[in-house]
């Protein structure tokens, strides 16, 4: 994999994410990049389902939220270290997705998309009633939880670096799958599932496996993100709008392309940040984002990278 230029690009991006705010010490920039990194994790793992396999997971945010909840519970109630909590959250949400996938991945097209919305809402409602998770009022971190990481100020930097590492892991995971036999099977499923099955692709297992895999890193990042915030609430953790925004990011960059997923997420985050602070657009942030999405869907369905790769087909080979 290290022979591919993309591998080195990922390393360079990670270095930039670490060094630029690290050297300048700019906390505002760090927060903005942190959000960008979280979005890149969400969009590139969603890409594994939508772009690679052709299954539209509308409730993808459930993995992030559930990971956040499990991790926060392990940290606050059982006093685990945040790293172990994050890993265990990733593993358990993955397992949950695997079992869930065996059921709902029998549904195709719009039916699958609807089921994922239903699952996100069901999980949100269940968590809101689950008292160990704090019910509707959520869970809060005590200040002392940051002590093992050298106090709050220090901890925020460390968590940021960790999220950046997971962002790099997401991109490399996408690259590794794209250039594997497993990935080829997924693409075949995306193009024509019945044909893929006749050609020998064990589709039920492949779909469940990628569903579980696409849950792992978002769940880990969920733990870190809500740990950083110090609080987790059902409404934020299972925010259906963010779920759909992740799809917008993916579409913006170009579904199926690794570069596009990352690029779309990053640009969308910056764009949204700009709209929120702009005096002219702050009220119309949703409207502008909606118009942008509509324009992509109607006029540029391949997204930005889809367009670039069509103009420069050789670039696709070099990059991905």
């Amino acid at each position, binding site marked *: 994999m290290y022979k591919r230029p993309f591998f080195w690009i990922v390393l360079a991006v990670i270095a930039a994410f670490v060094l630029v705010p690290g050297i300048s010490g700019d906390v505002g920039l760090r927060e903005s990049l942190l959000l960008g990194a979280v979005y890149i994790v969400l969009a590139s793992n969603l890409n594994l389902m939508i772009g690679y396999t052709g299954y539209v997971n509308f409730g993808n945010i459930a993995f992030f939220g559930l990971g956040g909840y499990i991790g926060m519970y392990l940290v606050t109630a059982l006093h685990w270290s945040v790293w172990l909590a994050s890993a265990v959250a990733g593993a358990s949400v993955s397992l949950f997705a695997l079992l869930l996938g065996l059921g709902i991945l029998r549904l195709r097209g719009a039916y699958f998309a609807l089921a994922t919305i239903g699952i996100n809402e069901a999980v949100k409602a269940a968590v809101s009633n689950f008292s160990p998770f704090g019910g509707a009022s959520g869970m809060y971190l005590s200040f002392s939880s940051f002590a093992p990481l050298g106090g709050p100020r220090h901890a925020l930097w460390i968590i940021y670096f960790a999220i950046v590492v997971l962002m790099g892991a997401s991109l490399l995971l996408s690259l590794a799958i794209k*250039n*594997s*036999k497993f990935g*080829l*099977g997924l*693409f*075949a499923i*995306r*193009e*024509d599932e*019945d*044909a*893929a*099955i*006749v*050609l*020998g*692709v*064990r*589709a039920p297992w492949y779909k469940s496996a990628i569903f579980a895999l696409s849950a792992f890193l978002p769940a880990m990042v969920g733990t870190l993100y809500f740990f950083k915030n110090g609080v987790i609430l059902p409404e934020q953790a299972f925010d259906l709008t963010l779920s759909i925004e992740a799809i917008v990011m993916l579409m913006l960059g170009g579904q199926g392309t690794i570069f596009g997923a990352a690029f779309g997420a990053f640009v969308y985050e910056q764009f949204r940040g700009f709209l929120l602070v702009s005096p002219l657009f702050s009220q119309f942030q949703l409207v502008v984002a909606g118009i942008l999405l509509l324009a992509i869907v109607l006029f540029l369905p391949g997204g930005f990278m889809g367009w670039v790769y069509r103009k420069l087909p050789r670039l696709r080979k070099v990059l991905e």
Partner: protein
Amino acid sequence: MSELLKVSEVGKNFGGVRAVHAVSFHIDEGEIFGLIGPNGAGKTTLFNLINGVIRPDAGRIVFRGQDITGLPPYRVVRLGLARTHQIVKPLNDMTVLDNVTVGACFGAANLALKAARPAAREVLKLVNLDNRADQLAGELNIAGKKRLEIARAVAARPALLLLDETLAGLNPTEVTHMIAVVRRLRDEYGIAILMIEHLMQVIMDLSDRILVLNFGEMLAEGPPAEIANNTAVIEAYLGDPDLAHKILGTA
């Protein structure tokens, strides 16, 4: 010659309609076996039953000594039984080479990705698509898509290949080329072939034996010469024996 596929008393109903009823036959290694019958006779349904796309209501299908009745298609092809579709199913947004690589990776060949690509290129040469390897499959014309369909199935390295109306929609030159490919598959690769075809001349020419289906039931089975002179077949098939003889070239 040893027996490759044995179909015994296989049947399938669709909501009270008998699509296939009590069909039995066997195919030997290296054999070309023709399957003919009027439209709606249940030929494609029989293919679907054999490769596991649908589950039979009755009967048994044994392939290379193993009972494959009701096994899902991805397991059947792994055992060495590949097929093509009458309505081609190219993986449109993937290259021609990747389409065939899927066959090589997931079929009986079960190759690793690295070994699958060169193998796929070999097969593309066989069907004269090697100069299109990097094109998207969706951009091929219908003849190209038909060849791709065969190439993918062959890349799986099957012992038995089911061909569903591979010649339909091709012009005479393309038909001649395709017939040559089918012959080579048997003669050079040792692949047994079960083919559905409407071009009588071709199927009579190619097949070692022929099975005739009508309304889901077996009407006759035997060598081409026998089938061509079977009055029941001729009447069921065309209604008019004189016309039939003309078409079959046996008058």
